[in-house]
């Protein structure tokens, strides 16, 4: 009986976890751009962001290796082949809606491409570029 109760509790919990939206929608591309502009103390430059996005920075990959150029369609992971939702927010309503996700991916992907974290200026430039891409 105890086991059964545990089972129900777990099933309920699992259901709750599943029904929770995967993304918290606590931010937007406009807010993210404003955040990095403030930290960079100068507004992001879309042209510089575009050049940065396409550069390999001395390594094997650029941002575009997985996200494509321009990143307005589905991308493809450079090593696994897994499809990646379009990065430019105008082409993907779920993009840039969760600040924790934005931070996580910027941290990890900058390390993959540049072997270091990106500066606030670099992030502001790339976000300005992504925000500039419209259908």
């Amino acid at each position, binding site marked *: 009986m105890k086991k059964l109760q545990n089972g129900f509790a*777990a099933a309920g919990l699992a259901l709750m976890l599943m029904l929770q939206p995967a993304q918290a929608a606590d931010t937007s591309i406009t807010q993210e751009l404003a955040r990095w502009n403030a930290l960079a103390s100068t507004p992001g430059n879309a042209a510089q962001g575009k050049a940065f996005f396409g550069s390999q920075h001395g390594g094997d990959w650029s941002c575009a290796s997985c996200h494509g150029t321009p990143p307005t369609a589905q991308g493809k992971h450079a090593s696994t082949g897994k499809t990646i939702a379009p990065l430019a927010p105008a082409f993907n309503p779920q993009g840039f809606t969760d600040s924790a996700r934005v931070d996580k991916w910027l*941290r990890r992907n900058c390390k993959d491409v540049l072997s270091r974290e990106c500066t606030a200026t670099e992030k502001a430039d790339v976000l300005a570029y992504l925000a500039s891409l419209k259908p």
Partner: protein
Amino acid sequence: MPTPTQTRTLRQALPALALLLGLTTTALADGGKLSPSQMLPSYQQECAACHLAYPPGLLPARSWDRIMNGLDKHYGTDASLDAATVQQIGQWLQAHAGSYKRVSAEPPQDRITESAWFQRKHRKLDAPVWQHASVKSAANCAACHTRAEQGSFDERELQFPRGLDARYRRAFQD
């Protein structure tokens, strides 16, 4: 006195373990389901962002443990996560790791594709099959295994990769 988190983890783990015991006999039979009936949402969300949500039963517990302790250097990429998520996914992988005889050996570099059983199963495939643009890598199960996302690798569900020259069909026909 267990913390609320511990209690919750325990409540989640108990039925999962019971389910695992019930499924052990069929879980690893050829063509059977290698995944728990439900994937942990955070496993799906975090791991499957970059690659297939590999069935936990395809690697032994010690391999999963090493993988979860080295996410910042994860097969050439930084896949690091916050500590709470690492712990949650790690515990779930431990509970569902492969224990069937052929999965119990830890493969080189903890790569599923380096497992003896994996190589034996795929030995008839020519090198160009793996390198083709629509396959890209042996990690891309879904290029041929149409129901890999559901944890099913039945040979009847195989598809010949898109755009690949027909002369490589050999391994897909027997």
